[in-house]
């Protein structure tokens, strides 16, 4: 049985991993439908839910890069 199916986001501030669909606060936000910025439920830090963007996703795919994961940050220290 698969444990995780939805892609997790790693907060670049605190390293907390979470699923965007589980964010109750975003579901309450009146501008949620147009907003691709999500808040970490641990520290509140904003990240980009790249799946919810169109233009940014397109540019990102051209660039061939992704939002860095926390592990990568630590490696660079």
């Amino acid at each position: 049985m698969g444990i995780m199916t939805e892609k997790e986001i790693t907060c670049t501030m605190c390293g907390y991993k979470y699923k965007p669909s589980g964010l109750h606060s975003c579901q309450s936000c009146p501008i949620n439908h147009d907003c691709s910025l999500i808040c970490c439920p641990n520290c509140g830090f904003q990240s980009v839910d790249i799946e919810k963007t169109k233009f940014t996703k397109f540019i990102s795919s051209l660039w061939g890069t992704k939002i860095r994961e926390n592990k990568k940050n630590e490696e660079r220290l």
Partner: protein
Amino acid sequence: MHCHATTQTTFLNSEGSIALVGHPNVGKSVIFQQLTGQHATVSNYPGTTVEVIRGVSRALSRTVVVDTPGVITLPPVSEDEMVTAQVLLKEPLKAIVQVGDAKNLRRTLLLTVQLAELERPLVLALNMEDEAIQRGVSVNYALLAEHLTLPVIPTTAIRGQGIDKLTEAIISLSHPHFRMNYPADIEGFLAEFSTRTTKTPISPRSLGLAWLSGDSSVNTWLLENVSSDIFQQLISLKDDLQLKNIEQLSSIIQRVRLEVVETITRLTMVQGKTASNTFTHKLSQLTTHPLWGLLILAFVLYGIYWFVGVFGAGILVDFLEEDFFDGILNPWITGLVEGTIPIPLISDFLVGEYGLWTMGMTYALALILPIVTVFFLAFGVLEDSGYLPRLAALSNRFFRMLGLNGKAVLPMVLGLGCVTMATLTARILESKRERLVVTLLLALAIPCSAQLGVVLGLLAGISFGATLIWSGVVFLVLLVVGWLAAKLIPGERSPFMVELPPLRLPVLSNVVIKTLARLEWYLKEVVPLFLIGTAVMFILDRVGILGGIIQAGEPLVVGWLGLPAETSAVFIMGFLRRDFGAAGLFLMASQGMLTPLQLVVAMVTITLFIPCIASVFVIAKERSKRTAAAIVMVIFPLALLVGGILNRVLLLLGWGS
């Protein structure tokens, strides 16, 4: 061997499962997989949407292992934490395994001492030992085990290191006899509590402590398991205890635990220096230092002022607004519209004084877009460098003066990104009082990134002194209102505990992608609001109400604030979004209609104005409609009051008139 066989038998004879408990992202799931193999069942915990993973461990004589959701704080606040608390409180458990981060011993131990108080068999697996060593963290595990009176096993679960020893330690079913001494009156209460409660799922002492700390699940357990007489007795004992203490009981308990954790950490951990972290470590310490931290903050602010104000609002806006829009695009579009649409009403609606293109789109694209673009870039650099949590730690000293501390600081700093989202983030605060005070302060004095960009851009056109006056006044209002609100709204304060991520060089791709995402949001959310606002202004103008409003607002706007009468129209725009109003001021200033003094007064007033419509909706939804109405009723007159006072003070000082 004989001893091992005995413990194995005891383990086999005991009933229940093994619960893996720990902070988020400490490697619980990896340890779970190491103990149980690949097979796991995932199901929602009864009555919740939170997933709990269970698996069977062969190494532990086919005992069920439960991987609980990560806990950030106990008593629980989030639904995830509630589930973990329920597992600890209600499920039959053979033993608890706390998985902790060896790099972050303080945070780990704060949970350990609470789990040890449950008086159930407990093992501490200090995971990510390899990373701790890399960072120069050295833990004396034997001494730590001695202080905590429980097995402490260093593990690097991802490589399977330490798992065998962990399994042995679990089988030993070692009961900790660790005890913290609380103040005498709390100890007295705990003794009374223990005599009145029987068949408690965890030790009566820890149940009593959890209840004093405000754990609602204990309240439910008491209601279900003790008679109403005893419950009333316990309530009155608790109330008496609180009356004897000025400080909240939960804060006293937490303080004792923090002191114990600090002592144990100091005795058992040594933070060495490695070549890679010496510089960043030093810089990191300086950013939160009371003096150096402020100097670094001043340097950061000056950098933003220069980049956003001088470069963004000066060079970029000059080019886009004056040269391109006013010089080329707008005359061409106006000519085209007027030439093709013969009806003046419609052409005015598109390209007139309050035209959708000449006002709405020009404000959005030529004035604000370049400013917010450079501000989003600057903000992205700060975010990606890990500076913002350090700003939160530094600000904590000032916010503590307001009676605010702990996680309350984070939404305030994050409000600089988006006030609407920060208002939602206020949910992470534990006390109702903090949620309310933070919501008020966010609505009043925290400009969001778009507003901040426009304000900084506009003020940069005058001088750095104007920026300092604006920021000084807004910060002062924040302090005074926050202090007053904290005094007037009763409630408890939660302690400050933030994990600082490493300070690092920002990655260009991250900053650019985040800036693009923010700009996409800006164009989708803000531009339509600008167009709606422009349409409202057009209608008000056409039906003759706008003139009436400007006239009616004269005593306040001209008499009290000392601004030109036309500024009333800008304030109406500010009702929709503060940056829309600020853009109007920008244009008035560029047309020479405002003196530096008037501009600073107008900027302070509009910054303190009611937040954007989305924020008001969120406040109504999160707190209540009454709270939202009350906040607006406080903010609106307060913004005008502060603006008027500033006008008089600056006039007296002879500044910028």
